[in-house]
């Protein structure tokens, strides 16, 4: 592709974006757009895969057979989301194996929320309610994102995550109707996850250099702070209905803004966790690395077998 040809292509690309239409894998797209998308979709896929661990931690200890089935199915869905999203990235010309290596080497990130430990069964509910809730706020606008395969994957992902969020909330609601110990478990879990959940929307808009370009390209549709506010406003009444206290003394309704005022997360903690020093960063990557290494001989056997079948059919 020569420079001469690029001008009309770029024009077509920008018109598509302006029309809020989808860019498809076969369409021409700027290199930066492609790179930004790969980074974002891969990070999203990695988050699904690493996100299997904190909840997976409780599958073997689920306190009822119904909850065991629900949790198994949820973690399985996360693997499924990882699959579609890796496929969407593959349409941009990178392989799943490549992306896995980037995850393991730390050159691509995943959502920092998964670097916090799950310490009780209530965390399964809290992750559904707050973490999936925050993820949905982030993701619903992405269903209209400009890149076709990503947008379509997000439609499916969001549908399933809404279901997970309801299940998580329902678990907490059930526990709140249980014993005092169960209610204390729920409150303790919410205390731990509230601030990390707020951090899921990313740093304050002033510290988020990529937001503007991503918005211009229609990859992103709202700023971090807008989404965070929306999440808080959505969650406060849910917390009330549940009967838990959100651990923020500054949290209150602001009649003038018709929105909640709330405190600021510990951004120093946020950057520490992003940089790899969170409570579970090393553990999560080591777990994934071990699974990857221990599976190597199986993947090799499958390839050798497939090659043999092809040879025999030739």
């Amino acid at each position, binding site marked *: 592709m020569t420079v001469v040809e690029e001008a009309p292509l770029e024009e077509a690309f920008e018109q598509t974006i302006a029309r809020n239409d989808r860019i498809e894998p076969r369409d021409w797209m700027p290199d930066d757009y492609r790179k930004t998308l790969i980074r974002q979709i891969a990070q999203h896929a990695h988050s699904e*895969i690493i996100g*299997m*661990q904190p909840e*997976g931690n409780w*599958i*073997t*200890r*689920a*306190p*009822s*057979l*119904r*909850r*065991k*089935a629900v949790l*198994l*199915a949820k*973690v*399985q869905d996360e*693997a*499924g989301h*990882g*699959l579609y999203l*890796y496929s969407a990235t593959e349409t941009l010309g990178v392989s799943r194996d490549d992306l896995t290596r980037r995850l393991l080497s730390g050159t691509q990130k995943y959502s920092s929320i998964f670097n916090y430990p799950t310490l009780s*069964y209530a965390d399964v509910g809290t992750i559904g309610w707050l973490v999936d809730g925050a993820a949905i706020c982030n993701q619903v606008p992405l269903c209209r994102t400009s890149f076709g395969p990503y947008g379509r994957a997000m439609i499916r992902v969001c549908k399933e995550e809404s279901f997970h969020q309801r299940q998580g909330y329902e*678990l907490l609601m*059930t*526990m709140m*109707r*249980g*014993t005092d*110990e*169960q209610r204390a478990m729920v409150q303790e879990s919410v205390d731990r996850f509230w601030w990390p959940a707020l951090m899921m929307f990313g740093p304050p808009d002033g510290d988020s250099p990529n937001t503007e370009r991503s918005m211009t390209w229609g990859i992103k549709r709202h700023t971090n702070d807008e989404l965070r506010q929306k999440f808080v406003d959505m969650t406060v009444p849910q917390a009330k209905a549940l009967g838990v206290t959100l651990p923020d003394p500054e949290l209150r309704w602001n009649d003038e803004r018709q929105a909640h005022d709330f405190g600021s997360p510990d951004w120093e903690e946020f950057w520490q966790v992003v940089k790899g020093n969170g409570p579970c960063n090393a553990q999560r990557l080591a*777990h994934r690395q*071990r*699974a990857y290494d*221990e*599976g*190597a*001989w*199986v*993947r*090799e*056997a*499958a390839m*050798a*077998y497939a090659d*043999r079948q092809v040879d025999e059919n030739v």
Partner: protein
Amino acid sequence: AAELASYCVMLGDDALVYAQRLSEWTSRAPDLEEDIAIANIALDLVGQARLLLTRAAAADPGIVPSLPEGSPVPAEDALAYFRDAGDFRNVRLAELPNGDFAELVVRLLVLSSWRLAIFQRLVAHPDPVIAAIAAKGVKELSYHRDFAGRWFVTLAQGTEESRRRLEAAMAGVWPLIGELKSPTAVESSVGADPAQITDELEDVLAQVLSVADVTPPDVRPIAVTRGGTGRDGMHTEALSRMLAEMQVVARAHPMGQW
């Protein structure tokens, strides 16, 4: 009714205990596709366990462990979470600690082939609930067996390493197959014809081994001792450890709602 309950507990415990082992694989499989498939198989087995334990409790409420007055724990969970290892009736093959992926494939092939042979016959069981559970289970178990069978052939014919691992896994699993072929009195009287089940299990394994071009390992079955086998509540050391983990949250909250 006591015999029927006892039979349902046996089949239910096989599913529950092996589902627990399979669920330990979550986020550890060789690739995403297998992670999803294994979780799916575990889910099917948890579902079968729930139906069978519920049927058992209905047939003989006396088998359900008693919980504090007013506990909201349903019968299926009382059975799953409040029995000690000695009260479980699963075959020992279901409870062995997980090995590598080859071990998963070999054990799943054996257990799903055996269970499918049983369920295919239970479809015609006089108890309509069992017949319905079996009808649903047959579809699920066919998929489990296919998954295991395909991977069995793949590993046998993949690389030297995969074949070596497959053979090592067979050497570990085979000594415990004898227990699947030694029905208890309850199974002989309430269940499907054990002779037919054994024949079918042997046929299926022979067929898969032949396609994979693998010979059965040269190992002897674990001897029957006066202590008995898993069906008599005599388990390996692994089961009580597994249950310590599985039951810990439920037991800490006998009055809990989940």
